[in-house]
């Protein structure tokens, strides 16, 4: 059963239109609204034809801003959200048509905590194991091992109501791993974790992946995507706008370095001259309402360009009011593809 041993994820043209407000974890932000005479006003397009192909055994990241459709994608892939159109598979199983088989293969860490408050940490793991038909001896051993691995042993027999956010998050991840799923979904796994715990989590995720498991995680943290994911899809407004390894994606940004400039006045002449500077690959201009002119300069060098840009501006008698340099990063990539910052 090779398909089961290394279960991949495949989606084909997924669309999701919410007619009521999207659930909390799948939104907050809103995609473009559809306007039409006979369409209810509240329709929100969360996914707009998303096709993905996650290989079995890889760590795959969905990177995008809030409201991009990441949580909706995870919701559909974990049977919790019904797609409006399109299909999705885990391994060979059609997610919508074969939910029980799919649920057996997956472990899910939701974005918001959803621990069973009526149970202790250990009981949460034990009952989760029981739902998946694990026998009691295996369950007990696995629960102890996970509590230990996630540094929760000393709180194992307490109710989770009083747990800190970080502890709840660790326990949620431990629970998702309890039945040893072939595919692990982590929706914003490191949100709210302190740096140390984040490193522990990354280590655990890598280790789990090395045992042949597929991992899909969503994040809007570039550092995490860069450090952890073997491949990434950048999604925005429910569409896949770029796909590749972090290195490939970063290399796809012209030059790699990004200099964001702001001028006191517009000057097309200056922009033309900027394009002729050595190392500059692309210049994008956008004028804001205040009459200021912003230019994004993509180049294969960073700081050394600043003095040349400054002298060009002085020659054109345009005031250079701000310069911001960023090194090759997924943030630049996102900006390059969408014209928006990932943090916006």
């Amino acid at each position, binding site marked *: 059963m090779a398909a089961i041993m290394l279960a991949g994820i495949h989606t084909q043209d997924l669309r999701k239109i*919410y007619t009521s407000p*999207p*659930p909390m974890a*799948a939104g907050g932000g809103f995609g473009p609204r559809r306007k039409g005479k006979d369409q209810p006003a509240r329709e929100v397009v969360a996914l707009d034809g998303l096709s993905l192909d996650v290989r079995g055994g890889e760590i795959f990241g969905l990177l995008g801003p809030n409201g991009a459709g990441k949580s909706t994608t995870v*919701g559909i892939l*974990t*049977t*919790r*959200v*019904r797609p409006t159109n399109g299909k999705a598979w885990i391994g060979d199983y059609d997610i919508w048509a074969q*939910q*029980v*088989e799919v*649920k*057996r293969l*997956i472990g*899910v860490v*939701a974005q*918001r*905590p*959803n*621990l*069973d*408050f*009526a*149970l202790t940490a250990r*009981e*949460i793991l034990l*009952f*989760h194991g*029981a*739902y*998946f*038909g694990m026998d009691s001896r295996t369950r007990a051993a696995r629960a102890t091992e996970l509590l230990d691995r996630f540094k929760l042993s000393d709180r194992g027999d307490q109710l989770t109501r009083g747990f800190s956010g970080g502890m709840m998050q660790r326990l949620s991840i431990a*629970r998702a791993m309890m039945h040893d799923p072939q595919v692990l979904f982590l929706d914003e796994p490191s949100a709210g974790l302190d740096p140390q715990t984040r490193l522990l989590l990354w280590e655990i995720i890598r280790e789990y992946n090395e045992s042949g498991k597929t991992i899909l995680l969503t994040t809007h943290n570039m550092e995490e995507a860069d450090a952890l994911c073997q491949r990434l899809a950048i999604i925005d407004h429910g569409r896949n706008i770029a796909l590749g390894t972090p290195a490939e994606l970063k290399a796809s940004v012209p030059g790699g370095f990004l200099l964001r400039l702001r001028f006191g006045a517009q000057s097309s002449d200056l922009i033309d001259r900027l394009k002729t500077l050595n190392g500059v690959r692309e210049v994008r201009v956008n004028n804001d309402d205040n009459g200021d002119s912003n230019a994004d300069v993509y180049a294969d060098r960073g700081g050394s360009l600043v003095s040349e840009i400054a002298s060009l501006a002085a020659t054109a008698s345009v005031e250079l009011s701000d310069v911001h340099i960023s090194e090759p990063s997924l943030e630049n990539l996102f900006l390059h593809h969408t014209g928006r910052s990932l943090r916006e």
Partner: protein
Amino acid sequence: MNWKTFWALLARDAHVARRNFVPLILQTFLQPMMFVFIFGRVMVRSGYMPVAYKSLLLPGIMAISMIFTGVWAVAMPLIGEFQFTHEIEDRLLAPIENHWLAIEKVCFGGAQAIVAGLAVLPAAWLLLRPGVELNLQSPLLFAVVTLLVALLSACGGLALGCSINQEKIGLMFSMVLTPMIFFGCTYYPWSALENFPILHKVVLVNPLVYASEGLRGTLVPQFPHLPIVAVLAGLFIFDLFFLMLGLRQFRRKAVT
């Protein structure tokens, strides 16, 4: 159908109920016992109520306890877990079709209602003695009615729990359950409404009427009560209606 998972879901609910045993007991017994004490003892002893009222009251108290327990056991956790804690999500990801989780809730709530009903019966009987005349003629019929009443409470709880917003819980009690109890022929037989012809007909849409009249008809048949066939039909139809409605609402909550 995956029995191991279903059993584990039941075990989880039983475990939680065990943990909350004392509040659960108080919640189930306190109100009906106080009612039994005041109306069945204080009022009767002081001569405001005839002694026969004790026997009339008992089935009604049993019906209230069962309905309250079942609705509470199913609806309250569902409201909280779907809307506030989201703790049901882990069970929705268990390898079983989602509707089995709803059915599990109904089974568990129904079992709790049966326990409540069967426990209230002797407790109230003890508190009311002497003067209570129970005439259990057909234990089988009593068992069937009790089972249907338990299912009514649990299915009703499912339908309510999946339809009502968290902030409207108070409203659910004051607008749904309280009128149901007062117009549910719990403290009086249905025939007592004959002097109010409109009300006499209107209360028949209240499922609790069939529950209290059914228990009255099987426990104290010496009092006037609805024909048992009507009781069985009414309970069965309401059970089915609330189950279907509840399952539909549950599916809507479980999947967006």
